[in-house]
């Protein structure tokens, strides 16, 4: 193992890690807002990937251009899911935690079933997109262009999210609601509206990452499941509810995955991620940046 291969895999790990962060941040945002873990998060990613695929296949819109469209569509979808399901789940008087887990998990199963029904279980991929399959050499290190652009989009999205939360009225309403949902009602903020918009925003972020993922990853009904667990680990590693934690968690997960792949057989690369998660929470039971 030369120094070059190590740097090479760490660089790809970093890019992938930023994307993991982008996939996970919607989850962190929603959890921070209302203490709900969306167990259909992976399926949100899955439909975003399908949306990108169909826009490409039928209208020849490149994923880079369709990304905002997909994000907007997912925004609406996220808000609708809140209004139709989650709104009632959080009202449950008994077993609130269980109801949240299983109502969103039931949604995940339905979405997978619908994807199988309408899109068939076939593997699909976006071929001949602008970025697909291209690599770029930076100082002797070869980087895949889709992941590189995806990582840049992730950084930009995190930056925009930071400004959005801190500088806009809606962002402040979001922060205020997460602080004390009862008190904001007194100052005339409609809690349900904020929650619905929060779900929309969280879903839009995963929509954005889905559009990027579609450039270089196969698309099939169960694709979400493989990324969902990584997203949960990313969020928990960073600390539930912390948007910055998701960013940092993503980078750590990407780097750890790349490092594990250097040491262990490829089929065991996820073991490194899981082991690091356990190690971190055994030492810090609230994750790295968890505030609770």
């Amino acid at each position, binding site marked *: 193992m030369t120094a070059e291969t190590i740097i090479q895999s760490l660089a790809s790990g970093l890019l992938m890690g930023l994307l993991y962060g982008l996939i996970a941040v919607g989850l962190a945002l929603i959890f921070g807002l209302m203490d709900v873990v969306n167990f259909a998060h992976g399926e949100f990613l899955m439909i975003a990937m399908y949306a990108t695929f169909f826009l490409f296949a039928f209208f020849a819109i490149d994923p880079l251009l369709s990304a905002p469209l997909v994000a907007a569509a997912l925004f609406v979808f996220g808000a609708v899911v809140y209004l139709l399901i989650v709104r009632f*789940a959080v009202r449950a008087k008994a077993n609130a935690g269980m109801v949240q887990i299983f109502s969103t998990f039931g949604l995940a199963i339905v979405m997978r079933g619908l994807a199988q029904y309408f899109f068939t279980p076939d593997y699909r991929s976006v071929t001949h997109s602008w970025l697909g399959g291209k690599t770029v050499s930076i100082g002797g290190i070869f980087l895949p262009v889709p992941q590189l652009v995806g990582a840049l989009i992730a950084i930009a999205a995190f930056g925009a999210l930071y400004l959005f939360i801190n500088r806009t009225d809606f962002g402040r309403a979001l922060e205020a609601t997460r602080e004390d949902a009862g008190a904001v009602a007194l100052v005339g903020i409609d809690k349900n509206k904020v929650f619905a918009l929060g779900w929309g925003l969280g879903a839009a972020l995963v929509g954005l990452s889905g559009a990027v993922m579609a450039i270089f990853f196969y698309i099939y009904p169960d694709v979400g499941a493989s990324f969902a667990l990584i997203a949960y680990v990313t969020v928990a590693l960073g600390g539930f509810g912390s948007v910055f934690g998701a960013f940092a968690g993503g980078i750590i997960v990407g780097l750890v995955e790349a490092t594990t792949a250097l040491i262990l057989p490829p089929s065991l690369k996820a073991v490194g991620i899981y082991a690091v998660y356990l190690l971190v929470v055994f030492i810090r039971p609230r994750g790295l940046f968890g505030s609770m």
Partner: protein
Amino acid sequence: MDTAFARSRRRDLIVALVLAAIAATVPLFVKDVYVQNIMVLTLMWGALSQSWNILSGYCGQISLGHALYFGIGAYTTALLFTKFGVLPWFGMLGGGVISALIAMALGYPCFRLRGHYFVIATIVIAEIGLLLFHNWDWAGAAMGIEIPARGDSWLKFQFPRSKLPYFYFALVLACVAWFVTWWLENSKWGYWWRAVKDNPEAAESLGVDVFNSKMGAAAVSAFLVAVGGSFYAQFVYFIDPESVMGFQFSLLMALPAVLGGIGTLWGPMLGAVILIPLTELTRSYVGGSGRGVDLIVYGGLIIAISLARPQGLIGLFSPKRKEAAR
């Protein structure tokens, strides 16, 4: 002591005995192998969910990683039998003891975690187990283990000709899991567990040994689930990592209890009796085309029940009892 409570417990026991006796006679009338198969699965999942309910329902430590213990039970039995010729009965016991020990070893660091951190830790640990079995060549790796047919006997726990012995064993397993729950419900442990679930800090300050309560619940729960896994291996004759340790098994164990009524005596069995036949029937009638309709029905049902009856379906039967148990 409290006679109303003692009476209701005695009534539970009598109802259980009557139901078990009725269940035992059902195969005398129902000869259809397909239906018998569903009955075996229903009893098995009922027993598994009942065992899961001890840790996650009564003690409140939600585990979505119980597939690990199920898999260890299945693998211990299958490996001991195929590699060393050890009878499945010993494998069953061995798998249970190993699982209980592993549950305590894992519980030692994990029970410090709360809420979602704990849930994700259980998922992640089971996934590590899955990946390790995937790469463990001696245990068949991804190819799995086929259990060779060695005749038709209770000694070897193999019955190629009839589902009935499996049915009766599954029935016994379900009764044992139910009885253990019934018995523990009114023991010192049962009270400790509910106290730990409701408010660990308050429980601790009142002298409940919170940590050991969780360890005890984990051990009992893992032991029973492993016995179920061991039974499953003997029932299907073939196991591979995905088919006994996959994440879906952890969920399948949790679902009947959640739908029937988590942390209740009758919830898991009620949930299994509704859920498992429904799953199997939708799978064979609308799922055969591989087009996902079974998933849509199944998932829709989970959403509907969890939103409409958050306390579980058991509340429909005896609302008073539910209140009394709180």
